[in-house]
């Protein structure tokens, strides 16, 4: 399972960075999204994946019978932040599209009138 997650995280990072290097605005934003998904999966797998052990403590349980709840809460926070940032970049891209009428980052430059 950890191997699979590691490969998925790697693939998400690679495709995210590739898309960020493209000239199209939409691809940049999709790349950012993929990158943040990649780091979320990385947090999950780096902290250790456990199977069928929800982090709910009942009487008589010890810590190693539970999944670590901290990475899950980190990912939750990161998802919320990523969502907000993604929404903001989409609005910004829309504004850019309105004023430049192009999806090409190189067309936005100050010297390209």
């Amino acid at each position, binding site marked *: 399972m950890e191997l699979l997650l590691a490969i998925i995280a790697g693939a998400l990072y690679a495709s*995210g960075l590739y898309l*960020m290097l493209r000239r199209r*605005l939409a691809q*940049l934003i999709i790349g*950012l999204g993929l*990158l*943040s998904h*990649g*780091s979320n999966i*990385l*947090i999950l*797998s*780096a*902290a*250790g994946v456990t199977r069928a052990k929800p982090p709910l403590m009942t009487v008589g349980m010890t*810590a190693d019978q539970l999944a*670590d709840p*901290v*990475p899950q809460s*980190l990912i939750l*926070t*990161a998802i919320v*932040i990523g969502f*907000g*940032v993604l929404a*903001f*970049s989409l609005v*910004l*891209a829309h*504004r*850019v599209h309105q*004023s*430049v009428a192009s999806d090409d*980052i190189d067309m*936005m*430059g*100050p010297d390209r009138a």
Partner: protein
Amino acid sequence: MLLALPILLPLATAILLHLLPQRSRLLRVVGFGGSLSVLVAAVWIFVRVQRSGIQVLEIASWPAPFDITLVADVFSAVMVVMVSVIGVAVTATAFAGVDPRREAVGYHPLIQVVLMGVAGAFLTGDIFNLYVWFEVMLIGSFVLMSLHRTRAQLHAAFTYVGLNLLASAFLLTAIGLLYGQAGTLNLADLARAWPERHTPGLDAALSMLFLTAFGIKAGLFPLFFWLPASYHTPPAAVGALLAGLLTKVGVYAMIRVFTLLFPNPHAIVYTVLLVLSAVTMVVGLLGALAQHDFRRVLSFNLVGHIGFTTIGLALWTPAALGGSILYVLHHMLVISTLYLVSGLFLRQRRTTELGALGGLYRSQPAVACLALIPLFSLAGIPPLSGFVAKVAVVAPMIGSGHYLLAAVALCVSLLTVLSMARLWEESFWKPAAMSVSSSGFRPRLGVAMVGPVVFLVSLTIALSAFAGPISRVTARAAEQLLDRNAYVVAVLGQGGPRAAR
């Protein structure tokens, strides 16, 4: 409770600003009052830290490694004071008038949000919380940057947003790997666990990830390109806020995280940082000489001088680190002042292109003399604060035998003198461009425009006059930073609980 005030007060002010009737005079007064209250709280924290050592606040009263702690040592306290000083100056400029369209979409609350994020980043003792404050600060600055219509401004905003989000992704990655390795996020707990978790290979990878993430925020070579591409487009007050604070948060985070988490001064990352700092100085100043716009020259100077602030960390001696901290303080003040000065140009001439400026000495001799102080201070002309700070950075280099580095730093100072002299000559001294003198367009500069500049300039002079006591404070800050044990004991107590994995 006291430690939470620099975070809670701007938050309360921002909420209040949204609820109040949207009359611009009222909003300006409330915004200004909010930042004044932060200044009071910050000075109070500083006095506390000076009197009784490192202050710790455990939010929600859980014992230390399990909750988010706020920690103020001398370095944090000094930085929070500087944030609030710049906050006061920036909110005061609002009295001179803000574009009504910006005011309608929440200019005033956004300034408070940025101040809150920066103060939070300076005070937190938890590395994931640091990431969250980075994001708070970035979202605030993103919106401030992108309240624009023109093509150049949108382009700048997009560059800024894209690269800063990339830095955030790097930071999150590094934090995730660090948690996987150590099982804790509390900085003090991570520092204490260092001997057990120390594995040279993973440490090198982690430290490089942190270096990249903080390097993008701080504007180190070769990661700085977003900065000169974006900082010259927003209005002067926003420029002053972002230029004064945001890069310094990157520098602060770098110094804080590296001194606590990577305490091996012979690690490869410090050699990399040393080289990058030196190259940043040279490239930044050469870039500044090639520019023809007041604010673009400032942006490149901002980048170049970041090298001075990170080099102390790379050298890893108390004297060098203290020098760098002094440099951070001086640089925050002076760069913010100069961006506010560029606001005076915008008010008078509607441009900061050097070609269209000039003749301002004739029309505004007092302002010209006022602007001379921060310009010469940045250049490092004695007896101003820049000279003191440069001595504090360069003397430890010579002391530890880094002669080549000292030579580079001194040559860069010379280039700064050239760059600053050119700025003053082009904008004040040379005769006014024809189009300007014939149009007779001369709006008056009110108290609200010049007042904040006078305030910051007088603080620069104070920093020069009281260089002795202030450099003792920064030296103490550096000692505290390099004494990781004191930080750990202050946060966790003697032999407190270790987060179990």
